[in-house]
């Protein structure tokens, strides 16, 4: 019988702990249990048979640690094949009369994936695939992924299963006592991601006893539309006379598990410390319990690697600012591969209060799949907001969805057959919450009825791919009323019908409505309020617009979505005090520099003072005002650099410390930003870098980068065109970048003694392939002697010393040219 059919009407019982029983059978500390599949098959069969005898329906093959990192391919195949054979033999020998299944057990690789660790997501997929292929070939009934404590690692394993077999797959995560995975995911986030990828059952195992997992299990039951599984430990371990003992025994264990079966858990077993007696007690206990039917929860969810966002209740704000359309500064950032600019936009929008970020990095001249992939990886390293991948390129969409750590929002499909046939298969594979535009081959219909008809067509087509309407969100398209004054009415009617008649979520790009009109904010924010009233679930919008945020907060308060109006009150208290807008010219004339630039000890202008004091906003606004009368580069030369020199000199004299230096650097950065915007607007080439390229990297094997990031920030302040390769950078990658830019100077950072050899190797390769480049090194373990020994040109103790050295080289180059 197929296991999924069996589960429809029955509880399914798993096995219990393996490790302790193997140790009792003589497994030595340090010995790999998977080898016993071949060396001690009788012991394995005996233990597994005892689980079937106790009533387990499913026994996991003894392959928890069987992966390509621990074993060569040949041994791996032998061990996995033997493990499956042993479990089959145990089932055959058992006297139990219940339905019996064998699961291929897959445990974590024990590698932490980037950005937390140093292991590539795709390498993990490859490693898991090996075990899956061997196990499937050996003939299992299902695959059981368990004890995963990181959502990204879980995704890698599940993807490996889905790409190699159609067998049922169960996924079980190990939660900490805080009810989260080690890397922060909540149960709801895991439900969203795993159901999106079509796991057949999901739940929790290991780490805690059944009572401590109640909260986790309840969250699963609230969100999951597939059967929920539970495989807890026998409580917490304790040492007694040199042996590990657990503090929950079979009677209490089965009592606790029984309560959770009554609440809706459908699959139960045990993990560390449990034995066949525990399973027997649970099976016995279950006889008086009727399985709770698994119901469709009909929740529209997206998730990041920490949390899920639910659509359909409180309206969801999706930040629109990561998009090059009409933004010269953003286009420039894309062309220059300036990922930090994009990350900055993400974090600013997060601070402004959005729940999701739209990510659009499409420009004709850039490699969109590669850039979107990079943007997804970098964004999910710094923000825990879920992402909405916004691209018309299906290759880019797949790259982004694959690398995304969670269940993404997909922007977008529409009623065109061709588009649906390209995008829906991706959503079916990777999961996703899909924005569907109500247009098709015939264009955008004028009336609400016709748009609703397209929506119905899309719902049908999605169902063919197994995508239910809870995973669709319709965008009935806001058009400008300046061209057609009936446009907004049609959109609002469509929102209303789709939400209330079709019962599907809706989203709009709000601001289109006011295109071509003066004071657009008035129209846009009012339209937003009206659409919310008609049932709009989400808006792609500009969170920096105070009018829009006003509407959002007021709407929530008025619709009883904001308990005691607390969110509104907090929002209102933090609103900027109303000020009479000063004319730009007036501000500058009052704060005009009064003394010759940078000649004295202290800061000589308001702008310089602002930088020295680290006042980010003020620096930005002063620069902006000053741009009205000064040339961008002149401001850099006569204001920003002198101010930085003051702070830099104070830092060297130990009059100020790193935190102040960083604040000043950040303030200076906001001056540079204004300058860059001005230069982008005037199409004035190089974006303000007046000095030579500088390649910087933390060496291969080393993942410490705070020092490197500080050096980078300060160098940028001094006008160097810094190409930051990040951390853990392979030797040749550094060399290639130096050659590409013909960079005269390279900075390498290492924190660990173990990674200094990688630094030495990088220098060696640089000498061979880029002999013109000077190499300076820094980092906690380095000393002058060390630097000399590995052949560096210069040892730099801190960021300022690096700047001074880089200035020397830049100066020498310029003199050489003259």
């Amino acid at each position, binding site marked *: 019988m197929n296991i999924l059919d069996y589960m429809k009407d029955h509880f399914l019982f798993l096995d219990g702990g393996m490790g302790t029983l193997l140790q009792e059978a003589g497994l030595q500390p340090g010995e790999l249990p998977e080898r016993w599949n071949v060396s001690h098959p009788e012991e394995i069969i005996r233990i597994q048979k005892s689980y079937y005898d106790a009533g387990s329906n499913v026994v996991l093959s003894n392959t928890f640690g069987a992966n390509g990192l621990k074993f060569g391919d040949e041994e791996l195949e032998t061990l996995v094949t033997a493990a499956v054979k042993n479990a089959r033999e145990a089932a055959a020998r058992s006297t139990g009369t219940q339905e019996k299944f064998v699961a291929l057990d897959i445990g*974590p690789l024990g590698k*932490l994936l980037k950005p937390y660790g140093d292991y590539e997501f795709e390498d993990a997929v490859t490693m898991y695939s090996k075990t899956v292929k061997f196990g499937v070939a050996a003939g299992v009934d299902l695959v059981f992924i368990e004890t995963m404590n990181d959502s990204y690692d879980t995704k890698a394993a599940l993807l490996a299963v889905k790409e190699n077999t159609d067998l049922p797959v169960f996924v079980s995560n190990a939660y900490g006592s805080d009810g989260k995975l080690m890397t922060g995911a909540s149960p709801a986030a895991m439900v969203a991601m795993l159901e999106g990828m079509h796991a057949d059952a999901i739940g929790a195992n290991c*780490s805690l006893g059944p009572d401590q997992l109640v909260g986790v299990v309840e969250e699963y039951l609230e969100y999951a539309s597939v059967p929920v599984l539970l495989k807890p430990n026998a409580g*917490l371990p304790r040492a007694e006379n040199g042996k590990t003992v657990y503090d929950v025994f079979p009677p209490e264990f089965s009592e606790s598990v029984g309560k959770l079966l009554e609440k809706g858990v459908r699959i139960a077993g045990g993990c560390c410390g449990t034995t066949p007696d525990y399973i027997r007690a649970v099976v016995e206990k279950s006889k008086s319990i009727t399985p709770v039917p698994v119901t469709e929860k009909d929740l529209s969810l997206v998730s990041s690697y920490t949390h899920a966002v639910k659509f359909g209740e409180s309206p969801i704000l999706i930040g629109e600012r990561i998009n090059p359309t009409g933004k010269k500064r953003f286009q420039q950032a894309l062309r220059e591969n300036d990922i930090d600019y994009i990350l900055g936009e993400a*974090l600013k929008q997060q601070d402004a209060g959005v729940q999701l970020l739209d990510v659009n990095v499409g420009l004709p001249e850039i490699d969109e799949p590669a850039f979107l992939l990079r943007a997804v990886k970098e964004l999910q390293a710094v923000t825990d907001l879920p992402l909405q991948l916004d691209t018309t390129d299906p290759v880019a969409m797949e790259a982004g969805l694959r690398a995304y750590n969670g269940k993404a929002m997909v922007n977008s499909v529409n009623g065109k057959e061709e588009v649906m046939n390209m995008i829906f298969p991706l959503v079916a594979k990777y999961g996703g919450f899909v924005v569907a535009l109500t247009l098709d081959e015939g264009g955008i219909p004028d009336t609400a009825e016709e748009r609703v008809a397209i929506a119905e067509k899309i719902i049908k087509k999605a169902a063919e791919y197994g995508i239910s309407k809870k995973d669709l969100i319709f965008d009935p398209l806001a058009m400008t009323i300046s061209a057609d004054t009936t446009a907004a009415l049609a959109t609002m009617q469509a929102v209303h019908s789709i939400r209330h008649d079709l019962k599907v979520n809706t989203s709009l790009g709000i601001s289109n409505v006011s295109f071509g009109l003066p004071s657009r904010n008035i129209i846009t924010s009012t339209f937003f309020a009206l659409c919310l009233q008609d049932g709009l679930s989400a808006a792609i919008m500009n969170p920096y617009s105070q009018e829009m945020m006003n509407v959002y907060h007021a709407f929530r308060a008025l619709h009883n979505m904001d308990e005691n109006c607390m969110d509104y009150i907090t929002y209102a208290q933090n609103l900027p005090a109303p000020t009479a807008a000063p004319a730009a010219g007036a501000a500058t004339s009052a704060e005009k520099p009064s003394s010759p630039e940078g000649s004295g000890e202290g800061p000589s202008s308001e702008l310089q003072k602002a930088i020295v004091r680290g006042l980010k906003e003020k620096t930005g606004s002063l620069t902006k005002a000053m741009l009205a009368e000064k040339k961008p580069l002149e401001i850099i030369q006569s204001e920003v650099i002198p101010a930085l020199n003051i702070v830099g000199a104070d830092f060297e004299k130990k009059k100020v410390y*790193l*935190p102040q230096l960083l604040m000043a650097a950040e303030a200076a950065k906001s001056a540079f930003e204004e300058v860059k915007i001005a230069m982008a607007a005037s199409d004035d080439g190089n974006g303000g870098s007046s000095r030579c390229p500088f390649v910087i990297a933390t060496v291969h094997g080393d993942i410490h980068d705070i020092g490197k990031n500080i050096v980078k920030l300060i160098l940028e302040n001094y006008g160097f065109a810094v190409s930051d390769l990040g951390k853990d950078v392979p030797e040749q990658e550094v060399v290639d970048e130096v050659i590409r830019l013909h960079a005269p100077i390279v900075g390498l950072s290492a924190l*660990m003694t173990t990674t200094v050899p990688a630094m030495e190797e990088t220098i060696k390769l640089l000498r061979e392939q880029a002999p013109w480049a000077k190499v300076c090194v820094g980092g906690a373990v380095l000393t002058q002697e060390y630097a000399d020994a590995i052949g560096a040109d210069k040892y730099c103790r801190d960021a300022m010393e690096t700047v001074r050295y880089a200035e020397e080289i830049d100066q020498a180059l310029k003199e050489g040219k003259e």
Partner: protein
Amino acid sequence: MEHVDRIIEALRVQKRTVPQYFEYDEVPLNEMEWLRYACIPIRDQQVVKEDSKFTASMAKALAFARDECVFRLGFLATPISRGEDGFPVLPFAQKSEKLKNNLEGCSAVVLFAATVGSGMDRMIRRFEKSDPQMGLLLQGLGAERVESLCDLFNAEVDAAAQSLGHNTCHRFSPGYGDLPIEVQKEFLPLLDAERRLGILLSDSYLMAPSKSVTAIIGIR
């Protein structure tokens, strides 16, 4: 006192114990150490704290730490002997002169691994880009949190040792002096640190979460 009792019990066994795990709800803050880890020398801390903007950042960092830190620790106790070469025989292989000196006269050791979890790493990454000063404060605070966790446990080991009539040595970590960082590869599995504490080791022997510590405390 439950922790101390359990350590006493482990030390009494007189053979290598299985790992045991503690979780602490709260760990007292050592503000001086925090700022020191954030690159502000002790003598200047007073001046920095007069800046209200800076103290506001400190309060914000503390609030993040309260939300994001867990305090998890695993330990085992084991008697030690001397090998023929004079080096102490420990559950992991090493030939460290410094550790040998540190453990002079010891009959047992406590090995432990501690972590504050990956939440701090997440916050640090978030702020490194958007607000480097906050990033630095969080770096320092993460280091302080895990060190203070070690101090708390160390005090419990001290109390346990004292009640058995013993003293403890300064705790010693892989990577100190001539004890190579590579011993982590053997050390962490002894405590089942990956599964129990969520501490993983990279190919270059760095721990993740980064705010984690392993150490040895000699009992003499």
